[in-house]
């Protein structure tokens, strides 16, 4: 600790603090323009000038100067005020006084400081800038005339996002922030640069001119896209969510979001939202009152409850709140009496619900997101972890670049993560993850690197026995990863003091199921990596509440049908009533044709959704439900983080929340009312008994777990290959999450349609370029898709995301981790 005096206040701060940090800790505000707590000090704007007794004679920048013992700092003297005024005058010299039409006004650091320092005249004169304004970009409007050259946009895009879209170009007064060769900006569209820009040089296009910053009601909530669980502030006016607002003090991510979270909010007030319940009459869906629709559903369920509960099945999206999932389970398991409920667990979440359940005795990861930066070595399964959970990707970037975390990736493609400094990507043939993981374990056993703690865990002998059968040479030959690489990775992993494994899961990653999760659990247990900070296994659930759905056991637990069996059951007639809360099986589940047929065949299908999805179109009753912005409740994100969402706007149309609907149906079936408020429901959720709802506040809480580890040997098998065909992998596109982002507007502006991504070599062989179309044929169907040529895909391997409803990739895939396809023009 270092002791110093700031404005007569004695303070002690950490050795590596700057004067700015010290003043902040003492509650003294020093004005800044180019400084940001997330970024390396820059010292470009000179707004933060202060006086230090020991360095009399000149003013020094507080944001870059480290503290030293006995420093005496003054932050506000006449001389300082004069200097700051001069800084502002010089900035305003070429700055257009656009405030009336500038979206930053009200939230603009330059405007606020100009006002604070009463700069109402300028001692200098000069011409204003005349840079061309970029109006064409779909999401980010750049007006370099308003730029004050703080460099924050370029720095955040480089330091945290690791994309590097901008840099300073030209020199002196001609300097500006530019893209490479002053070309178009076509980046990740995370919007981080917009959020840190202190002025109105970068603005969010979808929000342009929509409202003034001061007129917005700011509602704190949680992003409803992926499992990262980023905290979000919604900007609301007249019962409409108009934008998302940056708050640098929110969450582990300091307010940073990915493109989906930042630009994907427009589904909330979309004109396409369903507004009234619909019931199929004479073949078409017709608007009815709530009472009629609910009575119809209740009557059907009541009949089935008496006669044949097993003919009832229900699917819930892991986007519902915990409270809703709790009522969902209660209605179907307790009241109706069917075990056939699922949250696409069979397809997407069995790593948690089955894998970790067996290996650790819990349905959640033992580790947390904050462990990423505390780790020494990260073992990431697939570079796709960045695309599925971009803000967790930022944490990985920061870990690698700032904390020197050793990043190792086992992946079937290269990608952004693989390009990080010193990252090593063990590129393998598609579908070989399990083989590789077991090979790593084998090396650890063979080279006596296993942790002592492993000996006390049940099942070690059986596990070792299984590993004895692993033939490393064969694994190397099949996976395409050399024996030395396997040895080197295994040794590095075992020897790292703290090592963390990241496994993204989701509907696009059928291979990341129970077995892979268990193989990874085994590996972590063997190397003694479970149970300490910065180490362990973090399974990244796909959706905002995937973790909650796993915790609340929204899957069959007593021999009922899982999602796949429910679809089969509908097709065979065994399932007569299907209740679908928010899922869109037609687009998201494997084998579209089969799902469509199943839904058509099921006797009575109820769909609750925000939109008339392809699945809803096939339903007998469609109920309009509220989005996350219209209700209260909790989500559980990756790393067991329970957080509250808050109601920001009134319900759209007549929509009701799933919670209200479920409570209503339960009341109709049982004749007894049930409490439907989030607080009461949350307190009834057994697995969250360790969390105090009333104390959740803005930060949320991480619920405690007890790991009871066990080795569960899983044998890898050599994946089948087909000569002369391409291996088609599915997964998540960076700009999308599930099928909801299709209505998010922002994501669709930058990634509008289904595409097939291939490497340069294959594109050359097929003679196609970006934007051309290719016929993709698999055993189950054929699609014509737009081509995207990139550097990610190795030869013979192609990729296609799963989000899109038109030409949905599930028309040609059937739930295997690799689909073999032939490509032709």
């Amino acid at each position: 600790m270092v002791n110093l005096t700031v404005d007569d206040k004695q303070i002690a701060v950490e050795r590596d603090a700057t004067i700015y940090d010290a003043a902040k800790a003492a509650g003294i505000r020093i004005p800044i323009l180019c400084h940001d707590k997330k970024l390396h000090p820059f010292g470009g704007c000179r707004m933060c000038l202060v006086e230090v007794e020991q360095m009399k004679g000149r003013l020094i920048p507080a944001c870059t100067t480290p503290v030293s013992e006995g420093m005496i700092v003054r932050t506000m003297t006449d001389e300082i005020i004069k200097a700051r005024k001069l800084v502002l005058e010089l900035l305003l010299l070429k700055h257009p006084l656009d405030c009336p039409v500038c979206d930053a006004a009200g939230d603009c650091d330059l405007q606020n400081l100009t006002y604070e320092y009463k700069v109402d005249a300028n001692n200098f004169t000069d011409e204003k800038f005349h840079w061309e304004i970029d109006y064409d970009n779909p999401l980010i409007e750049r007006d370099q005339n308003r730029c004050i050259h703080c460099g924050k946009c370029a720095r955040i895009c480089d330091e945290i996002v690791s994309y590097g879209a901008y840099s300073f170009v030209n020199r002196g007064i001609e300097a500006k922030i530019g893209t490479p060769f002053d070309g178009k900006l076509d980046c990740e569209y995370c919007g981080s640069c917009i959020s840190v820009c202190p002025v109105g040089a970068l603005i969010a296009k979808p929000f342009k001119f929509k409202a003034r910053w001061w007129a917005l009601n700011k509602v704190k909530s949680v992003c409803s896209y992926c499992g990262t669980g980023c905290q979000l502030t919604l900007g609301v006016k007249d019962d409409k969510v108009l934008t998302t607002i940056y708050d640098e003090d929110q969450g582990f991510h300091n307010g940073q979001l990915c493109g989906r979270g930042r630009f994907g909010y427009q589904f909330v007030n979309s004109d396409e939202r369903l507004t009234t319940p619909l019931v199929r009459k004479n073949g078409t869906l017709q608007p009815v009152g709530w009472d009629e629709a609910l009575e119809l559903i209740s009557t059907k369920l009541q009949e089935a409850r008496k006669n044949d509960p097993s003919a009832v099945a229900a699917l819930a999206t892991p986007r519902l709140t915990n409270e809703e999932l709790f009522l969902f389970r209660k209605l179907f398991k307790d009241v109706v009496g069917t075990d056939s409920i699922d949250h696409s667990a069979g397809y997407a979440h069995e790593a948690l619900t089955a894998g970790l359940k067996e290996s650790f005795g819990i349905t959640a990861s033992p580790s947390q997101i904050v462990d990423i930066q505390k780790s020494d070595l990260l073992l990431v399964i697939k570079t796709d972890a960045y695309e599925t959970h971009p803000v967790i990707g930022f944490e990985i970037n920061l870990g690698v670049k700032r904390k020197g975390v050793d990043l190792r990736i086992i992946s079937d493609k290269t990608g952004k993560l693989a390009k990080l400094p010193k990252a090593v990507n063990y590129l393998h043939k598609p579908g070989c993850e399990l083989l590789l993981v077991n090979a790593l374990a084998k090396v650890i056993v063979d080279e006596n690197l296993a942790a002592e703690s492993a000996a006390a865990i049940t099942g070690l002998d059986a596990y070792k026995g299984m590993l004895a059968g692993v033939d490393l040479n064969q694994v190397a030959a099949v996976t395409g990863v050399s024996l030395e690489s396997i040895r080197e990775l295994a040794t590095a992993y075992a020897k790292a003091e703290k090592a963390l494994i990241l496994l993204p899961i989701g509907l696009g990653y059928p291979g990341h199921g129970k077995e892979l999760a268990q193989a990874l659990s085994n590996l972590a247990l063997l190397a003694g990596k479970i149970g300490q900070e910065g180490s362990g296994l973090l399974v990244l659930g796909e959706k905002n509440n995937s973790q909650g759905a796993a915790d609340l056991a929204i899957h069959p637990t007593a021999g009922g049908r899982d999602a796949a069996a429910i679809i089969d059951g509908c097709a065979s007639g065994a399932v007569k009533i299907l209740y679908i809360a928010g899922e869109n099986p037609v687009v998201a589940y494997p084998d579209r044709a089969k799902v469509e047929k199943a839904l058509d065949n099921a006797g009575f299908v109820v769909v609750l959704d925000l939109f008339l999805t392809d699945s809803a179109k096939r339903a007998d009753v469609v109920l309009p439900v509220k989005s996350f912005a219209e209700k209260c409740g909790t989500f559980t994100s990756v790393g067991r983080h329970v957080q509250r969402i808050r109601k920001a706007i009134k319900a759209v149309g007549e929509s009701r929340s799933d919670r209200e609907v479920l409570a209503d149906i339960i009341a109709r079936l049982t004749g007894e009312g049930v409490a439907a408020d989030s607080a009461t429901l949350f307190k009834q959720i057994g697995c969250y008994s360790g969390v105090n709802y009333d104390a959740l506040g803005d930060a949320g809480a991480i619920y405690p777990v007890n790991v009871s580890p066990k080795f569960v040997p899983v044998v890898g098998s050599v994946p089948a290959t087909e000569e002369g065909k391409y291996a088609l992998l599915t997964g998540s596109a960076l700009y999308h999450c599930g099928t909801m982002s299709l209505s998010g507007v922002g994501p669709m502006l930058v990634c509008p349609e289904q595409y097939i991504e291939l490497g340069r070599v294959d594109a050359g062989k097929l003679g196609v370029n970006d934007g051309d179309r290719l016929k993709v044929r698999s055993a189950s169907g054929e699609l014509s898709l737009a081509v995207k040529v990139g550097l990610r895909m190795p030869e013979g391997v192609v990729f296609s995301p799963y989000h899109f409803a038109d030409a949905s990739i599930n028309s040609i895939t059937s739930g295997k981790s690799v689909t073999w396809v032939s490509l032709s023009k």
Partner: protein
Amino acid sequence: MIVPLIKGLQITLKHLFKKPITLMYPEEKPDVAPNFRGLHALKVSHNKAKCVACYLCPTVCPAKCITVEAGEDANHDKYAAKYEIDMLRCIFCGYCVEACPVDALGMTQTFELANYKRSDFVFTKERLLEKK
């Protein structure tokens, strides 16, 4: 006793021959001071409203009677796609005029604002545009 009576009559007679103060409204109209705060007018320059939809007037308005909705024109500039003042709520304080950073709003001498329907008191942008 008679003296005060005569004095009183004197005053009456004096006033009888003075110019009357009463205005025979509506036949006669008053002279309205130039800085009178009557009906608003949106000033026009280069054939379009000067208003840039900065939302300062609705922000400052104590009666909350101004509604502005900004739009983007073909040159990507901001303009008031909607500008409305509800005269039933307006208290004619003139704060809006004072707040306007581009001198786009003024108040005219028009004070005859009576009307038959409530909706007629909502002045749309077209009705507010300065008549030249």
